[in-house]
């Protein structure tokens, strides 16, 4: 074949390839056009709904101003008075009025993006994952809420009032009127047209929630245990909920106030809109058609707009929301980028607005100046990170890590041994050098920034001399001169050899434990470490198959409860949280008494005493209160996007454990 013919053939082949690719792309382009027109139609509908909501609000305000009788007057109990201070008490409504002070309409707009995973599902009862709960927090509301500045005080949300009576066993809530369920996305489909209507929120939705949690066929073991003590729920009318608890227990407060409604008009019905038989509803609920569609419906400030697995989850502002949302029109979770390094690169490229750095990234990017857009740290100024184009700030996490000793093993029988192991741990040095200062030494089971923290407890300082003395006092000697301590236990010579098990792929812990092992070696203690994957670690915890484990606790509320982790009754339970087998009659007595105490003045001394006992006993080597570095697009972000403001104000104004709440965040452009 001549060269000219070959060249002609090549050109023809290339043109053919281009044509094929063009045809191949056409369906996707057509689909994109259809999606765009659907979005335009939805946007139009949303605008109409927003106009409707604005009209309703104007009517409400003018009716209030002219004392219109159509507006329901406030009952005497609801009138503002000093007693509505947010602190729970008996006999009167104490809820703070709903707070809208953070809302500035001039700041509305934009889409905020962050990294997150695609939730496996959105069923509020069956799904028990952190990301599902985060999504539900955006889409749904609870009876009461609290402000991040004052997390211990309760304020109105779906409930306008609550009266607690009968010695903390009866909670009577009055629901806010006019709250309407969001229409789920599937309602736009012909098959689910029966869902395309406004359904008001009523007390029946809360009753349905309790009914499902307590249904023996519904698979929610953790939730069930919390509602075991709930005797019954009554709904005398559409706006009144009465919860009756079997006994006076402190946890009844958080579970009553934090209860969210469950859309009965969806979950109690089959796909075709026919009601599900009462006998079958428990079984069907575990694998409900609505969950299979990836549906979520709530009464909250945002609705689920897009849910593409491993790609993107988007929430859009609910135009008919009764309350005050964040300033963003939409919030996106980027689920495509999974590893820390690619996430950091994506953040630097302006593809997300905030991120939490790993310790090694903090060191390389900020401390060592690897990224010039971060301001360099200033030991004298903890807020130095706010001046850079990419803002950063060290923040506190509501969690701590520990090394747990298996108290069933004879080598740990004497608490002086455990105290010695604590004295041998150079906590601060490890935090400074291995965790690069991102954390503080943890002292006991209560977080350092919790108001109930017992500051009188003194940590076991790094003191090898004292450690040696304690080991000697508890009977450990090197009787055979092999360099390792040993002791006679039940007639046998037992070396002080500890196998410490922890989760694989944690390089900071691997490095830290190397140091600790050397420290213990000098004292004659043989520490060996083993790593395991998560599933195997779960088995190790559950079967107590360890000498020692590395663990951590995420602490939720600021109100400590010690029964779950420290109660003697659960020391031998297979899946209990008391996996080290801690037993102490005094702690048991105090922790049960604590559950029956409601006033802070009564609770404080009990909690402090419990902390002192546990810390002295050292069932854990309490290691570190976790910290991290929060980074955000501070100014001068790439042209397409705007940068975040309001972050610093939140960091200053809110409680240190809740100061990353996006209530004050908004976009500005230079």
């Amino acid at each position, binding site marked *: 074949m001549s060269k000219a013919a070959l060249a002609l053939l090549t050109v023809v082949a290339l043109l053919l390839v281009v044509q094929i690719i063009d045809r191949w792309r056409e369906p996707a382009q057509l689909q994109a056009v259809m999606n765009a027109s659907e979005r335009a139609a939805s946007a139009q509908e949303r605008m109409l709904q927003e106009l409707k909501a604005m009209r309703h609000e104007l009517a409400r305000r003018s009716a209030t101003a002219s004392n219109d009788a159509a507006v329901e007057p406030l009952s005497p109990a609801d009138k503002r008075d000093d007693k509505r201070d947010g602190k729970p008490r008996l006999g009167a409504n104490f809820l703070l009025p709903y707070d809208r002070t953070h809302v500035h309409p001039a700041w509305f707009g934009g889409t905020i993006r962050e990294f997150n995973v695609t939730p496996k599902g959105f069923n509020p009862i069956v799904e028990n994952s952190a990301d599902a709960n985060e999504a539900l927090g955006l889409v749904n509301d609870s009876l009461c809420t609290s402000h991040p500045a004052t997390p211990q005080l309760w304020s109105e949300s779906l409930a306008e009032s609550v009266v607690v009576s009968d010695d903390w066993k009866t909670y009577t809530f009055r629901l806010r009127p006019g709250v309407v369920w969001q229409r789920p996305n599937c309602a736009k489909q012909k098959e689910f047209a029966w869902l395309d209507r406004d359904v008001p929120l009523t007390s029946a939705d809360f009753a349905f929630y309790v009914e499902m949690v307590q249904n023996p066929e519904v698979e929610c073991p953790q939730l069930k245990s919390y509602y075991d003590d709930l005797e019954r729920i009554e709904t005398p009318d559409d706006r009144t909920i009465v919860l009756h608890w079997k006994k006076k227990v402190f946890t009844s407060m958080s579970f009553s106030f934090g209860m969210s409604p469950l859309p009965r008009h969806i979950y109690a019905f089959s796909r075709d809109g026919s009601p599900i038989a009462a006998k079958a509803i428990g079984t*069907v609920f575990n694998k409900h058609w609505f969950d299979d569609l990836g549906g979520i419906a709530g009464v909250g400030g945002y609705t689920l707009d897009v849910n593409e697995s491993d790609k993107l989850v988007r929430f859009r502002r609910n135009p008919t929301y009764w309350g005050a949302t964040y300033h963003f029109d939409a919030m996106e979770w980027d689920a495509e980028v*999974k590893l820390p390094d*690619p996430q950091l*690169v*994506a953040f630097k490229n302006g593809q997300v607005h905030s991120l939490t750095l790993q310790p090694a990234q903090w060191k390389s990017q900020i401390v060592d100046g690897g990224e010039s857009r971060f301001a360099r740290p200033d030991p004298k100024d903890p807020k130095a990170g706010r001046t850079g184009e990419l803002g950063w700030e060290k923040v506190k996490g509501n969690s701590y890590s520990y090394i747990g000793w298996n108290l069933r093993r004879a080598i740990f029988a004497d608490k002086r041994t455990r105290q010695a192991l604590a004295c041998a741990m150079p906590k601060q040095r490890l935090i400074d050098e291995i965790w690069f200062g991102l954390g503080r030494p943890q002292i006991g089971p209560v977080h350092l920034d919790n108001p109930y923290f017992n500051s009188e407890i003194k940590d076991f300082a790094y003191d090898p001399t004292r450690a040696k003395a304690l080991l000697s006092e508890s009977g450990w000697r090197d009787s055979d001169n092999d360099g390792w301590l040993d002791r006679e236990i039940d007639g046998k010579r037992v070396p002080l050899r500890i196998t410490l098990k922890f989760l694989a792929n944690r390089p900071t812990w691997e490095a830290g434990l190397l140091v600790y092992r050397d420290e213990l070696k000098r004292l004659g203690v043989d520490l060996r470490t083993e790593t395991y994957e998560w599933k195997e670690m779960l088995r190790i915890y559950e079967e107590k198959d360890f000498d020692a484990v590395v663990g951590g606790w995420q602490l939720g509320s600021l109100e400590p409860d010690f029964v779950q982790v420290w109660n003697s009754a659960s020391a031998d339970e*297979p899946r209990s949280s008391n996996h080290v087998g801690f037993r102490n009659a005094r702690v048991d007595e105090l922790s049960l008494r604590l559950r029956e105490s409601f006033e802070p003045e009564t609770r404080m001394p009990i909690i402090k005493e419990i902390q002192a006992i546990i810390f002295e006993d050292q069932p854990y080597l309490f290691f570190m209160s976790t910290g991290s570095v929060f980074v955000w697009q501070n100014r001068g972000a790439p*042209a397409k996007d705007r940068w975040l403001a309001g972050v610093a104000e939140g960091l200053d104004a809110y409680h240190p454990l809740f100061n990353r709440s996006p209530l004050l965040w908004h976009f500005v452009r230079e």
Partner: protein
Amino acid sequence: MWSYAFRRLLWMIPTFLGILVINFAVLRMQGLSLTDTIASGMGKGDGERKAESASQAIETWLGRFHRTGNDLPALINLRGFTTSDGVRGRLLAAERGPQVDEAKRSRAELEDLWLQGPLLVEPLLAVLKDDGAARLHGPASMALSLCAYRPLLPEDAYLLAPAEQDRIRVRNERLKQLRIAYRNDREQGFITADPEAARKRDALIALLHADAFEFSRSSRRWSAIVSETGFVDFAHRLFTGRLYSETRKALAFDVIAERWSVTAWLNLLSILIAWAVSIPLGVWSARRAGSFADRAVTGLLFSLWSIPSFFVATVLLHHFCTQDASGAAWFPNRGLSSPDSLWLSTPAYLADLAWHAALPLFCLTYGSFTSLSRYLRANVQEQLASDYVRSARAKGVSEDVVVWSHATRNSMVTMITLGAGLLAELFGGFVFVEYVFSIPGLGMLTLEAAKQMDAPLMMAATVVSVGLLLVGILIADLLYAVADPRIRSRYV
């Protein structure tokens, strides 16, 4: 040639099935067994509450495992051959003795019996009817109530008539109510502790007699050996496309359909690039064997080969994909196309694709340059030293023709072999590149499914990966026949 291709295709089937069996067996070995799951969930409360929670746990988990076929034995089901004597023996083995460790062992024995399913109803019923085995009636009734238990799944609400659902529900409830209370005493073994034991026994026998046909084993036991196994259940779901991913809330193959082409295309391109670079490089090196240039290139290639692709990918990401102050970067940091690439013209779209795929393809291919080019270099050198090449040179054939048309062509069989092996490596190594460059492909999907313990999705993704691999090997086998007439004549 066609018959050769057809024979190769037929050989794929048993290979594929064998890999499927191994995969399934490995997955089942690693997964929690029903007994483990229930044991770890039991133990709450004490006494009656403990027994109640145990029973509740079993019923809950039976339903869940029934959905995935995990309540069945993995590969062979011999439960239909258990005799009443066998059952009796197992019940007696579960009876406690005076030793301290007996509690754990006997509980495990009993729990294992509880989970045997409907094929054990007949022998258990025989034990229950035996007046001489009165002390075993308690544990037998417990085991019967669970073996005859038929979990009602959510889809049954649509598949079964309401009357049938009610019948099953009522029977399940009756089975629970007719359990004869007993204790497993450390000193005395099984002790019946139920004043209504006789009535419950008669009622249970009558209840199960009414459904005798459902539990009859005579016609079923032989077919059940293979048909009622976890593997067959899984294979049935696989080949009818009914494998359902709990984590994605979609059919597994629908999820994979979005992603497999990404992995397949990138792997194909990687192989083509690897060959396109390695072949000329290998031939060039062979023609200059021993020279300084050859040694320098060899050193460079081995240095590249020794650097792990995950490390290279991360370094490239940081240095070439991070935008500077002006917002510019050499390459994009994620994905295979820009967000607005759908509306680009085709040449621009292809350029955008090439721009996105450049770094991932480099990470995938650089390691294979070394092995492919060095193998080819050795083979070409060997060919260049052979008699026929000397003859060709003596006849006046040009050096280029000698090298390319003769020596290189005869060396290509090795390249095809290596290419097929490369395909397998690429499927494994692609996971790292997908993660670092955030490419939504099959590798990442498989790993995510493994982390979330989504067995159906993992199996489906593995099946697709294995299928693609086998197709690649088939293509390699066919190319052998094309490249080497000796192979063609041997098999055709």
